[in-house]
């Protein structure tokens, strides 16, 4: 702590050191630390200690019953040799790799056009934003009902009216993951649209005026002005959405509760594997190793995306 250069101290601490209690800056330092006292306890105890603890547990065979013993990297070896883990790993990235581009493309397109529409603007915006305020666990059941076979499911009902054959959706290993992903995209779209619109509003209109004087068309303005200036917003949303998809759980848990993560583990994301290993099998050491892997993935994705988008 002390070897971090104290750029802000200037005269403040120097005075504080000599005149201690009576100087105003000295008193302010005491106030500052008293304001921070409880938060420091909180962050140390509820954030940092559990983080270290998770790493430690991942090297043990702790199962809640017997005391934990150190087993080295056995949990990680077991994990990387487990075919279900690789299936789950693939699923988790499928949610991310398909879900993030689709939801960003949709939300940008909607925000771009919604931004120009003034007639009943707040009503339209509300329609798109409402799903963001719903509870994922509740809406998962609505979507689950939508995906039911004829005569219950709404989507298959519409398909049959259009003379399209009924689809399996959640019952098919091929269609179940995309079906759940649609729910995730739907739930997150409103937030992304709002953020994109805020980003679009922040671009000064003089840029557009100058471009029009230069004779640029709408498409050229979009490519040369709007998109580059929107980069910080886009980076934020890419990372935010990716992390959301990598941590998907609520929808999968509720939409596949009769066969969690099924059919045939085709929808199971990493968080669900963690949940089952820890709280159904109580294999805490193994589950902790999975959480460490999740942490590494999240870290890599956020650092990687920031890096890629910053250099473009």
């Amino acid at each position, binding site marked *: *702590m002390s070897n*971090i250069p*104290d750029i802000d*101290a200037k005269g*403040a601490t120097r005075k504080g050191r000599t005149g201690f209690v009576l100087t105003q800056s000295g008193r302010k*330092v005491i*106030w*500052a*630390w008293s304001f*921070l006292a409880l*938060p420091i306890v*909180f962050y140390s105890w*509820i954030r940092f200690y*559990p983080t270290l*603890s998770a790493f430690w*547990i991942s090297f043990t065979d702790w199962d809640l019953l017997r005391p934990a013993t150190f087993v080295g990297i056995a949990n990680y070896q077991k994990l990387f040799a487990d075919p279900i883990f690789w299936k789950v790993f693939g699923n988790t990235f499928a949610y991310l790799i398909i879900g993030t581009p689709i939801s960003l493309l949709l939300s940008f397109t909607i925000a771009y*056009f919604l931004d*120009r529409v*003034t*007639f*009943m603007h*707040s*009503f*339209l915006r*509300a*329609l*798109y934003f*409402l*799903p963001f305020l*719903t*509870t*994922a*666990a*509740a*809406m998962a*059941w*609505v979507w689950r*009902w*939508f995906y039911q076979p004829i005569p*219950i499911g709404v989507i298959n*009902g*519409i398909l049959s009216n259009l003379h399209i054959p009924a689809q399996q959706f959640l019952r098919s290993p091929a269609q179940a993951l995309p079906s759940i992903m649609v729910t995730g995209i*739907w739930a997150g779209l*409103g937030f992304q649209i*709002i*953020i994109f619109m*805020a980003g679009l509003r922040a671009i000064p209109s003089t840029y557009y005026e100058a471009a029009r004087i230069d004779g640029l068309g709408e498409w050229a303005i979009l490519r040369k002005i709007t998109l580059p200036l929107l980069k910080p917003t886009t980076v*934020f949303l890419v990372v935010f959405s990716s992390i959301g998809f990598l941590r998907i*759980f609520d929808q999968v848990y*509720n939409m596949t509760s009769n066969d969690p993560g099924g059919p045939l583990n085709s929808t199971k994301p990493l*968080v669900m594997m963690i949940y089952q290993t820890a*709280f159904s099998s109580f294999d*805490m050491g193994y589950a902790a190793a999975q*959480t*460490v892997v*999740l*942490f590494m993935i*999240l*870290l890599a994705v*956020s650092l990687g995306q920031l890096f890629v988008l910053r250099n473009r």
Partner: protein
Amino acid sequence: MADMTAYGAELPANRKRIRPGLILTWTVLLLGGLLMVTPLLYMFSTSLKSAGQVYDLRLIPLAPSFDNYIKVLSDGRFMRWFANSTLVATTVTLSNVFFDSLVGYTLAKFEFRGRYFIFLAILSTLMIPTEMLVIPWYLMSSQLGWLDSYWGIMFPGMMTAFGTFLMKQFFETVPDDFLEAARIDGLNEFEIWWKVAMPLVMPAISALAIFTFLGNWTAFFWPLIVTTSKELYTLPVGLSSFAVEQSIQWEMIMTGAALATIPTLVVFLVLQRFIVRGVMLAGLKG
């Protein structure tokens, strides 16, 4: 709705003629928007149908009735879960508004050795996913007797790095002169924060409050883990167990889902502008 009349009156006078492209854009946006709320409309529609009518997929029920709501609410479970969620979300929100603001303010407006270190340490917790912490939290809770208690549900979220960072950003825009004037008036540092600085960042506080409340109202993963008795379930966990138990009685499940959704929708309809602005603020600064 105010937009409609305002722009309607303005358009013919001083704007360009409405282009056909704009009408097309508007129509497509309306259709897309209606598609977005279709799941909600169907949820409400089915919650008003009887078991026999569920297979009838029309949106407006033939004989709408609140019987399902009466049935679902009659045994008091949903009321209990509703009360639990309200208590948990409100307490956590108040705690975040207080502590995140206090820490954000301290980091923005006080000069002391170690300030940068504390800031980085708090910020670094953003990188740690909840999923990694739940196993140690579960262990901690079982040792301290916090499992299956309100405190057990609430303790992990009492302060957040996101909120602290958001509030710090906003407190940095508060002019030092205001705080100095209060200091000369003889207010102590706590009073300066609470009475002078806090009122100046009300938009940020409301953004933080909205985000924290919504996040905790819809939270599922940790409440699912930490609660075992039905009396302590939050609304999402309760609904999930209720839906599993109802099996294929979709009209009952839709009624439960509607009950879980109505509170946030009502709050949104009342505070729409406020909430949208709050989300923009939090999203851009956070």
